[in-house]
């Protein structure tokens, strides 16, 4: 074995130093990545979702669509007003409801209800929906997002907690989206 092939003491320690630093870096990466991704991992298995009450049945007359607001079930101390959320509640008859997210299924702008023409219209790109939430016209690819609901102790209650977006909609509504 020639002298050049021999690993010198210093060279060995330098390599050991690199390895040591690499190990420490790898060990630190685990908590850092865990911290960064906590907002995703925490949301697994619908942990963000809860049942929240919107109000007593009497607030929602039959055959009408009313705006209701609720406080998002998952809040942090700095959320302020942003954790307050609005939704459109359509009471078809009796305990039969449809609860729509205000977010347009196109890009999430707040849709407004027009009683006279029985349409939801979006101010951003002109999406329009019929009273049952199905797509009427414009750029949306599907109908309005719907929250699962139930009537409990005379209160209209919905399962909410996540911003409805076109991609994440499957987890929001228990059933298949109403497509046009």
């Amino acid at each position: 074995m020639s002298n050049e092939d021999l690993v010198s003491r210093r060279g060995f320690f330098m390599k050991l130093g690199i390895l040591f630093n690499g190990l420490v870096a790898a060990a630190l990466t685990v908590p850092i990545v865990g911290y960064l991704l906590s907002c995703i991992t925490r949301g697994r298995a619908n942990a963000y979702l809860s049942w929240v009450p919107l109000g007593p049945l009497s607030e929602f007359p039959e055959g009408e669509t009313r705006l209701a607001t609720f406080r998002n079930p998952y809040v942090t101390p700095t959320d302020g007003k942003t954790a307050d959320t609005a939704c459109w509640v359509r009471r078809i008859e009796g305990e039969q409801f449809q609860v729509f997210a205000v977010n347009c299924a196109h890009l999430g702008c707040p849709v407004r209800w027009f009683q006279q023409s029985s349409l939801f219209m979006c101010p951003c790109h002109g999406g329009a929906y019929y009273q049952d939430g199905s797509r009427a016209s414009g750029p949306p690819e599907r109908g309005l997002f719907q929250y699962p609901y139930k009537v409990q102790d005379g209160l209209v209650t919905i399962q909410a907690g996540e911003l409805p977006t076109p991609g994440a909609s499957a987890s929001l509504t228990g059933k298949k989206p109403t497509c046009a």
Partner: protein
Amino acid sequence: MRLIAQIGEWFDRRLQLAAPIREISEHPVPRNTASWFYVFGSAALVVFVLQIVTGILLALIYVPSGGEAWSSLQALNHDVTLGWFIRALHGWGSNFMVAIVLIHMVQVFLFGAYKFPRELTWIVGVFLLLMTLGMAFSGQVLRFDQDAYWGLGIGASIASRVPIAGPAIVKLMLGGPIIAGATLSRFFALHVFVIPGMLIGFVCIHLLMVLKLGINEWPMPGRLVKKATYTAEYHELTKKDGAPFVPYAVWKDMFFAAFILLAVAACALYFGPFGPTGRPDPTIIQTVPKPDYFFLWLYGLLSYLPPSMETPALLIGPVVAIAFLVLLPFLSGEGEKSWRRRPIAVLAILLIAIVLGTLTHLAGYTPWSPHMNAWSGDPVPERFLHGATALQRQGALVFQVKQCRNCHSLGELGGQRGPALDSVAVRLTQDQLIRQVIQGGGNMPAYGKNLSPAQTTALVAFLETLHPAGQAPARDASRDVVLSDAQEKRPGAQP
């Protein structure tokens, strides 16, 4: 004077920076690059410095908390002495920076500066553009108002369309399940630490390469770039026809930079700060969110893309565009530099400018959006009701009450989502009008379930009156024949 020289010497003995600084500032540049066309890069850098300074000043007051950001902006606007001016400088500085970076890029492209050996300078520049746009968007988020809130919603809706990873990306972007305090905090971190840090690093690399490789010479038609000979030719040029950058060329950079700073200050003084608009309260839905100026074209594009094309266009479009910009110097790294002999390059720039300009212009008045208050705010002009029958008047009422007006204008007033109806009777026959109203189609909702037969009859009677005085309404030519045939066949009909 001697004391200053002595102090300077004391420092330089330790820092040893005087010699390299002199070398850098006096490096020879080709004489004809001392041009007003070569001032945009330095101007962008100067505006970036302005942004850093004003940004730090704003951070003295601004609170990156979902609950308090909006109020702290109000305090800056109204309570803190000259807070409004610093906000205005930062806001206008942002617009100017995007504009100057874009102009710089166009100039560099048209002068062929991205060709060998400056490929990497161009690629780093592409990333600098993306970071500048990232700063513009995240800055708009920090102005935590209704536009920022719903703008984030648009961003989340776009991000959610990524296959499989979409929902996870949305949560990562928002810092949680909804747009809230955590969202603002992470955009603050991006806007104040992450992107500026990367910008500073990339600007240094960009500048270093400009110094090491030399500024792009003024392109001469017919003088082709060849990898084998370019470097030698460039050195020959700077040796034969070169001049020290300082002071030969630098004075133009300085004048232009000062002029730009003055323009930013003038805009800030005259127009004032941007927003904030309404409080970021998602329960206030009476809002028409709009992005800042440099994203308006995207807002316009998103309303014109057919629904089926939207997701692929949103996800693939940016990747293709960025890949093309990055690959450009490898696709045409040699050859002609002068824009006089590169018609496709010039046409491409013109085409992009016209497309972006048109979309921005359209997004300024959003003809695709319904006018939410037209049905109750814009009356039917009197001239459309002159001599109208009771039925037609009733139809005009239906027209207003059923909010047709939100999408259809009459006498220039009303929405522009659908066609103007001033002369609709010339285009559609009675049957076609009835069909269109009841079944919708062509981007119009169907009103069949929402109109009683009587209302439809009245509405169509009114619509049939909408034709210019000298022009007859459209009619179905076969209808008369069919009707008269039917009359003839009727038993007992008079011949």
